């Protein structure tokens, strides 16, 4: 069927279909990419008074001498320490969700759902009347959660786990800003009650107002504004990130991976008398290795660009710059110092790091697949 005339016609038709998308791709993708590369070698500025001049590698040289750049790179890398926690948590949740959740006796399911609803609503009502509304609220929520859980099993649990990821954005960041309030935030209020209960007189963490960090015991350079060992703003952002990511897409990808593991592997392990711990480490975990590899690389690529919304909405990059990440630095260089050329140079250094990772991903990722 392939004749030159037909080829030419196809070419024209294909381009008609492609044109709208291609124009957008050109104007908002390719052109800005080249512009930012070119701009990083100039004095490109939003200030009209600054003339546009070619300055060679000046921006890059300045960048490599910029002590703050290394500080912010450290912050970015430090925040990424939440990644292994989130991935391990996502794997745990996926394995838990993948367990058998339906009862052998079919009447138990509606029975327990009804019981949970009655007990939940009933005790909530009693507590409400007796003047403990907060406890009533929690019990009501528990009642609703368990009723739905017994009725719909893993689908409903998956929904609850996924909600923090799905709603992630400015609103949840503001919500956590309030939760972290050192005086009346939910987290420190709860901690104080726990401390009181055990009779200890520890100080509650300062969270978003503190420069402490879990690596604060290390002899870091002075301009890293190290506040010593403890829980500070970076831990707060990390914890919020783990909450948002643990039941998110990583968990869903693990669930898909789990359903693709051939059941006969487990049957063979059962014949050999393997414990569930051995089954996990010798079958489940190796079988999920491609997923783990994929989510790790994607997580690192995302993490290198991360921390912007948190810095802008929660901390303005502070206290003392400890929550300023590379992405927030690019933003402040461009839109606060109006120095687009320098911002573009930072962005390109970041891009090269991501590029190296992506290429490593392709190389090692494809090797893993062929194993």
């Amino acid at each position, binding site marked *: 069927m392939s004749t030159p005339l037909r080829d030419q016609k196809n070419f024209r038709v294909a381009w008609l279909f492609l044109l709208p998308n291609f124009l957008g791709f050109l104007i908002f993708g390719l052109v800005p990419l080249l512009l930012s590369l070119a*701009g990083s070698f100039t004095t490109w500025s939003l200030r009209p008074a600054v003339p546009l001049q070619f300055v060679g590698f000046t921006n890059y040289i300045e960048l490599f001498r910029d002590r703050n750049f290394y500080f912010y790179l450290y912050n970015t890398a430090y925040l990424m320490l939440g990644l292994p926690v989130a991935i391990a948590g996502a794997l745990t949740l996926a394995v838990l969700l993948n367990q058998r959740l339906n009862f052998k006796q079919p009447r138990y399911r509606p029975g327990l759902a009804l019981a949970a609803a009655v007990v939940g609503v009933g005790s909530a009502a009693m507590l409400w009347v007796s003047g403990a509304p907060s406890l009533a609220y929690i019990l009501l929520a528990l009642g609703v959660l368990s009723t739905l859980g017994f009725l719909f099993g893993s689908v409903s649990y998956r929904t609850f786990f996924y909600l923090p990821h799905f709603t992630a954005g400015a609103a949840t960041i503001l919500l956590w800003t309030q939760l972290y309030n050192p005086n009346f935030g939910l987290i420190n209020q709860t901690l104080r009650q726990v401390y009181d209960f055990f009779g200890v007189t520890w100080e509650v963490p300062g969270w978003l107002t503190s420069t402490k960090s879990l690596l604060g015991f290390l002899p870091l350079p002075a301009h890293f504004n190290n506040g010593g060992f403890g829980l500070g703003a970076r831990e707060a952002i990390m914890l919020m990130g783990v909450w948002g990511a643990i039941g998110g897409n990583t968990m869903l990808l693990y669930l898909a991976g789990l359903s693709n593991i051939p059941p006969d592997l487990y049957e063979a392990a059962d014949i050999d008398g393997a414990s569930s711990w051995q089954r996990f480490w010798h079958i489940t975990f190796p079988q999920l290795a491609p997923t783990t590899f994929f989510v790790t690389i994607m997580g690192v690529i995302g993490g290198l660009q991360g921390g912007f919304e948190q810095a802008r909405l929660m901390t303005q990059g502070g206290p003392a710059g400890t929550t300023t990440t590379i992405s927030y630095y690019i933003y402040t260089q461009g839109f606060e110092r109006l120095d687009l050329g320098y911002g573009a140079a930072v962005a390109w250094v970041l891009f090269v790091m991501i590029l190296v990772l992506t290429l490593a991903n392709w190389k090692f990722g494809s090797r893993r697949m062929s194993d």
Partner: protein
Amino acid sequence: MLLWQELKTLLRHLVMITLAIMMVVPFLWMVGTSFKPHSEVERPALLPEQAQPENYAIVLRRAPDPYTQRFLDLDFPKWYFNSLFVAAWVTALQVLTSCMAAYAFSRIEWRWRDKLFFLYLSTMMIPGLVLMLPNYQIMVKLGLVNTYLGLILPAAFSAFGTFLMRQFMLGIPKSYDEAAEIDGANHLQIFLDVILPLARPGMITLTIFTFMGNFQSFFWPLVMVKDDHLRTIPIGLLSFQSQYGQQTELIMAATVMNIVPLIILFVTMQKQLVAGIQLGGVKG
């Protein structure tokens, strides 16, 4: 033995319920606080003693702030409209352009097709940060800063959407096109009457992804919007915090109104969404 197994299942449920409640507690606190009067915000109780549902009316500018006796300076209802309006346009345009491009990349044979597609794919790994500064300059030159068009246009094209739709369309057997072609249909007819109806599950997935992503997007509107009447919810919440940062109960009422529709959307559409994420395995 059977009873032991049933108990084990019950135990699994209890573990799941515990984990689920831990994920949900921040939302419970959010809803509780949104009903508190200002004087109760600093108390540890999750619920107010004296509920003040007027907080919602205050945020929606239906009632004055009881402390200043004035209406808020912020136009939350307008932000809501802006977010929906911009996200709806972006979604419609992006799904349309992505489907058209995906058709060219999957159903028509032409020279350089796969090379160009590879170029598309490779742009997916360019960080948005690299493009942000020059894109802003381009919008300045086009005179689109601080306009709806400036918010919509750059988001209306997507390599990811093209990729996702192409993957879906590749799964449609070629014989459908050939049958339609024998009946005398041209490419436009094949696209509209054969491929698009068959690619519907993919389009629904892309629609939700795009809509959600844009509804929640923060970066681009932050640099594009200067005036209050153009703010979308995420940007509006930022100014809300800087102006009324002490009034936690109002901020929480605003966040509830942002988050609850998302929860409803997710619960109703979750089947398609989960399948889409697991199939695409891409979007972060």
